[in-house]
């Protein structure tokens, strides 16, 4: 495509690179907790990189570095100038740059996770940035959220409903959430988690292993 193939301005086709997994969802739903859990569960068997999109400071990146779940250098933080959804959807340049920087420094990698800044129900990842995406809700937002839909809830490859341990306290009915989500998601999977109780988010990790394996099969021949 271009004159020099070894610089880092590559086109976003999938050959010879890691699967890029976006994790989005409203503020505080447990995105960073899920990233940490996935690093714990998958770190031993996969080569990982993480990009965080913080709204202020570098809180999420710092949290992950302190948690010690992944080598601190493999986490890069992107700043989003007041607009977390812009950085994952309309103008993905800074995120792509971070992802490719990780691949260049530590590659080959199996999986790069991009956590979006907490945003609203309409924020989803561009296909130019994420190959697959998880949308994380929590039960404390109320059991009506799946019914409300929005692109995150309806279109994400996996919907995670987190903090099920809080359901009795906030009066959220998980059966209602499950039924409503199934209705708008057209058969795509939904998983209920309590990352507080399951520090490795094992059901989600298992799903991620599945998509990473499928990705390798699809793209392996050109690596």
């Amino acid at each position, binding site marked *: 495509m*271009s004159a020099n193939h070894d610089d880092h301005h590559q086109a976003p086709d999938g050959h010879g690179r890691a699967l890029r997994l976006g994790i989005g969802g409203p503020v505080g739903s447990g995105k960073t907790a899920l990233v940490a859990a996935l690093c714990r569960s998958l770190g031993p068997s996969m080569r990982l990189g993480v990009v965080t999109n913080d*709204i202020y400071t570098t809180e999420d990146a710092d949290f992950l570095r302190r948690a010690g779940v992944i080598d601190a250098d493999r986490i890069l933080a992107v700043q989003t100038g007041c607009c977390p959804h812009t950085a994952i959807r309309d103008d993905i340049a800074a995120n792509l740059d971070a992802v490719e920087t990780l691949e260049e420094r530590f590659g080959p990698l199996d999986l790069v996770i991009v956590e979006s800044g907490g945003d609203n129900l309409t924020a989803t990842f561009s296909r130019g940035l994420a190959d697959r995406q998880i949308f994380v809700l929590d039960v404390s937002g109320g059991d009506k959220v799946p019914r409300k839909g929005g692109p995150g809830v309806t279109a994400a490859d996996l919907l995670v409903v987190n903090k099920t341990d809080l359901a009795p306290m906030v009066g959220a009915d998980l059966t209602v959430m499950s039924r409503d989500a199934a209705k708008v998601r057209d058969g795509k999977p939904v998983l209920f988690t309590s990352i507080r109780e399951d520090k490795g988010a094992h059901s989600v990790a298992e799903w991620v292993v599945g998509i990473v394996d499928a990705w390798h099969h699809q793209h392996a021949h050109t690596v």
Partner: protein
Amino acid sequence: MHGDMAMLLLADSRLPAGGHAHSGGAEEAVRVGAITGPEDLARFLRGRLATAGVVTAALAAAACELGADPAQERWRRLDAEADARISSPAQRDASRTQGRLLVRTTRRIWPSEALDSLAAAVPDGAHHPVALGAAAAAAGCEPRQAALAAAYTSVTAPATAAVRLLGLDPVLVHRLLADLAPALNDAAHEACVIQADDWSSLPAHAAPALDLLAEQHLRTEVRLFVS
């Protein structure tokens, strides 16, 4: 050629090249109370255009000219001229980051020898105005159009940031931008007067207050914008 259309695309804040995350010093100016409302903002924009804006426009014009007949050695020299004109390390970093993202994006929009050779010459990221001028050349612009796009984005980025940070009336802020039309023309004109091979005579206006804001901004704990 298609220079007019390309200039509009390059100047558009929707160009997906990472510009949305930069405030051009406005965030720190708001934090320290130097911009509190439309009057302060108007003064800030005017000052920025007359200093950083003119320098940026001149570098972009020179880069656009070079883009017509690019050579790696010449890109490195022009990039060094840009480096010498940005005294704050924080701003140099921000400029290179934006330049790198701009090259990444525009190379896919306008594949070209100009952008390929710039990327190869300065792989970690050329300064933003140099990248902008190279992209403008790749897209079929003339140096004056590159200068206009550069001067324009030097004021629209902080104006947009101020709207977000202070909740200013966006229509009023656009009126401030419209009022800058003559100054913008002058800046582009000044940028194109000095051309040819003598890059050392490109404008080198300093803006110490902007430099200080950029340095303080890096040390501020709560930041929404990269710069």
